[in-house]
C-alpha cells in the first residue's frame, strides 16, 4: 500500500508548482495593468470556460484521490472489510491505555484500531521516528472511533494525541507503541 509520505510528496510538488504559477501570474498582472494596452476585450465565453474549469477541477480532485490514495475507499467501506487484526485502545484522563500484548503488525495485514474515550475529545495519530504522520483520527467520547489501515512499510511508530484536550493533553505521547514488520 502507498505510504503517507508518498502522498505528501505528491502534494508538495502539486502545491509548490501551483504557488509559483499563481504568484508569477499576479506579479505579471500587476505589472501589465500599469502599462498602456487595450482593455475590455475579455469575452464572456472565457469567463464561462473558467467557471466550468473550476467546477471540473474541484470534483476531479476528489475522484482522483479516491482512486489513487488507497486508504480513501478503505475508510468509507471499512464496515464491509474484515480486518486481520483488531486493537482496542482506551483513552482516559489524558492517558492512552494500550492492549496488554504489544501491537505487532505485518505490512500485508489490514489492522483496525478501535479507540474509545471515556471523558474528553482526543485524537489518535501514528507517527514515524522522524515525526512525520502516518495516520490520524478524532476520538470522541460516546462514539465508535475506528480506523482500518494497511501499513506501507515496516517500522516502529509512536502514538500521539492529534487533538487538543486541554494543557494536560500536550504531552500525550506513547513512544514506539506499534511495530510493523515485513
Amino acid at each position, binding site marked *: 500500500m502507498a505510504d*503517507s509520505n508518498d502522498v*505528501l510528496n505528491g*502534494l*508538495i510538488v502539486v*502545491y509548490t508548482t501551483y*504557488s509559483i504559477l*499563481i*504568484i508569477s501570474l*499576479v506579479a505579471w*498582472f*500587476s505589472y501589465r*495593468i*500599469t*502599462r*498602456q*494596452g487595450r*482593455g*475590455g476585450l*475579455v469575452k464572456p465565453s472565457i*469567463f464561462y470556460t*473558467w*467557471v466550468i474549469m473550476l*467546477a471540473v477541477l*474541484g*470534483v476531479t*480532485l*476528489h475522484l482522483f*484521490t*479516491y482512486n*489513487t490514495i488507497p486508504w*480513501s475507499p478503505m475508510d*468509507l467501506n471499512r464496515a464491509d472489510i474484515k480486518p486481520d487484526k483488531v486493537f482496542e485502545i482506551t483513552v482516559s484522563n489524558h492517558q492512552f491505555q494500550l492492549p496488554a500484548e504489544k501491537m505487532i503488525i505485518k505490512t500485508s495485514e489490514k489492522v483496525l484500531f478501535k479507540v474509545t474515550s471515556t*471523558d*474528553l*475529545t482526543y*485524537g489518535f*495519530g501514528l507517527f*514515524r521516528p*522522524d*515525526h*512525520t*504522520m*502516518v495516520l*490520524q*483520527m*478524532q476520538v*470522541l*467520547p*460516546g462514539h465508535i*472511533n475506528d*480506523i482500518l489501515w494497511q501499513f506501507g512499510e515496516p517500522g516502529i511508530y509512536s502514538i*500521539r494525541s*492529534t*487533538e*487538543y*484536550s*486541554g*494543557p*494536560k493533553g*500536550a504531552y500525550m505521547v506513547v513512544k514506539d507503541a506499534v511495530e510493523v514488520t515485513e
Partner: protein
Amino acid sequence: MNYINTLLNGEQGIFKADTLTPMQKITLRFVVVGLVYYAFAAIEGMIMRIYEITPIPIMNEKHFFAMMTAHPLVGIFGSTYMIVFGAFLFLVPFLMKKPLWSIKAANWTFFLITIGTIVMWSAGFLSHYAPLYTLYWPLPADFTQFSAVGGAVFIFGIALIMVGTLIFVVNIFKTIVYTPDGWDKQPAGALLISALGISGSQNIFRKNKKEHLVPLPVAAIARGTVDILLNALIITFTGVLILIYMLWEIGGISLKSTAIDALLYKNWFWWGLDLIADGAVLIFVAGAWYLLATLITGKKLFMENWARAALFVELVVSWTVWSHHLLSDQAQPGILKVVSGEMVTAFELVTQGLAFFITLVTLWSARPLKMTNPLKFLLGGLLGFALAVPCGILQADLGLNRILHNTQWVVGPHVHVAVLVGLTMTLYAAIYFLFPILTNGAKWYSQKLANFHFWAHLLGGIGMGAFMGMAGLKGMLRRAIYVDGEFNIYMILAGICGVFLLLAFLAFLYNIIMSVGINGALGIFKPAKLKTKDLLPAEGK
C-alpha cells in the same frame, strides 16, 4: 520642531478632528480600536511563535493555550469584526445614498464589542480558561482543568460581542430598507429581495435585465450579514449551554457532560463557525473586491449579474460545507463527509475563483492604472485567497485529510494566509482608500512607509504560512507543544516572517499617527461638534 509638530498635529496639520461628522468619527473609532486589537493579536502571535521554538520561562503551558484561545477570538471579533463593521456602517449608507438608520445603535455595537473583547481576553489571561475557539465538547465544561468562574466571565465577554453583533445586523438591514424622514416611501420588500441577491439571480435568465435597487457591494454586505446573524445565534446558543454547566458548577452541582452528544455538538458548532469562515468572510471579501475594483477603475463590474448570483450561491454553500471539518471523525456519516465535506466545499473554488476572475478583468479593462496603495493591497488580497482557497480544497479531501487534519498545514498556508494576506490586505486596501474620505482629505505622512508596510506584510504573511505548511507536511501538529526542537528550523523561519508582519504593522501605525497627529487621533474619541446624520461635512460631499 517640525517633527514634534507633525507628531502632534499630523502631516501638514491638515487633519482636524473637529471637522468630522458623527458618522466619520464612529467609523474611525471602529477602525482605530480594530487596529489596536490587531496589535494585541499580532503580539500574542509572536509570543506563541517564540514559545513554539523554545518554551520561555515567563509562561507555562496553561498560559500558552489560554493565549492560543484568545488569539483568534481577539483577531476575529476585536480586530476584523470592528474594522469590517465600522467600514460597512459607513459604506452601506454611503452607497445607498441615505443616512445610517441609527448612529446610537452603531455606538452600542462599538462599545459592546470593544468591552466584550477585553472582558473575554482578561478572563483568559487571568484564569487560563483555554478550551480553544473550537470548544470541543466536553472540554469547555471540564472543570478539572479550567475554572468555572473564569470560564463564565469569558463566556460573558463573548456574549457582549454577540449582542453588539446582533445590533449591527439590525442596523445594516434597517438602513437598507427604511425610509428616512422627508423621503418618499421606500419599497422595503423589493430592496430586501435585491439585497439578498434574488433579483440578481433572476436577471441571469431574463432577456430584459432589470435595474438593481441595491448596489452590488451592498448586496454582498447584506448576504454576508445573514451569515453573521446565524453565526451569532449559534454562538449565543452554545454559550448559554456552556454557561449553564458553569453556573451549576459554581453552585456546587456538577452536571453530567454526557448529556450532550460530542458529535452532534461538533456538527452544530462547526456549522455555525463555517458561516463566518466559509461564508461571511468569502462573501464580504468578494464584495470588497468588487467595490474596490469599480472605485479604482471607475468602470462597471465585469459580469455583474453573475457576480450577484455567485454571492447568493456562496451563501447557500456556506450553510452546507461544515462537514469538511469532520472528515477525520469516524462516527460522522460517510454521505455527509463526501457530499458536504468534499463536493459542496469544492464549490468554494468556483465561487471564489469567479470573484477573483471578475475583479482581475474589471481592473484589466481600465489599463493603464496607477499602482496606488489601495490597488497594490487589493492585488495582495487577491493573491492571498488565490493561495489559501486551493489549500482548503486540498485538505477538504477524505484521503488528504487523513494526513493533514490538525497539522500546521491547515493553520499555516490555509488559515493564516487567508486571514493575514487575503482578508487583512483587502481590509488595508479599503482603509487606504477610505482614509482621505473619512479624514476630510488628510495626507499620508510617508509613501515609503506605506510601501514597506505592503512588502513586509505580503512577504511576512506568505512566508509564515509557507514555513508553517512545511512543518505540517513533516507532521507538526497545530495546538501542540514540541519541547525537543523537533521542528525548530521551520518555526524559526516562520518566526522571522512573523517579525516582518509585526514591523509592517508598526510602520503602518506610525504612518497613521504621523498623518493625523496624536491630537487628531485623540480627537476622534471626543464627541462630534457637528450635529448631522450626513456622512460627510457639507463642503466635503
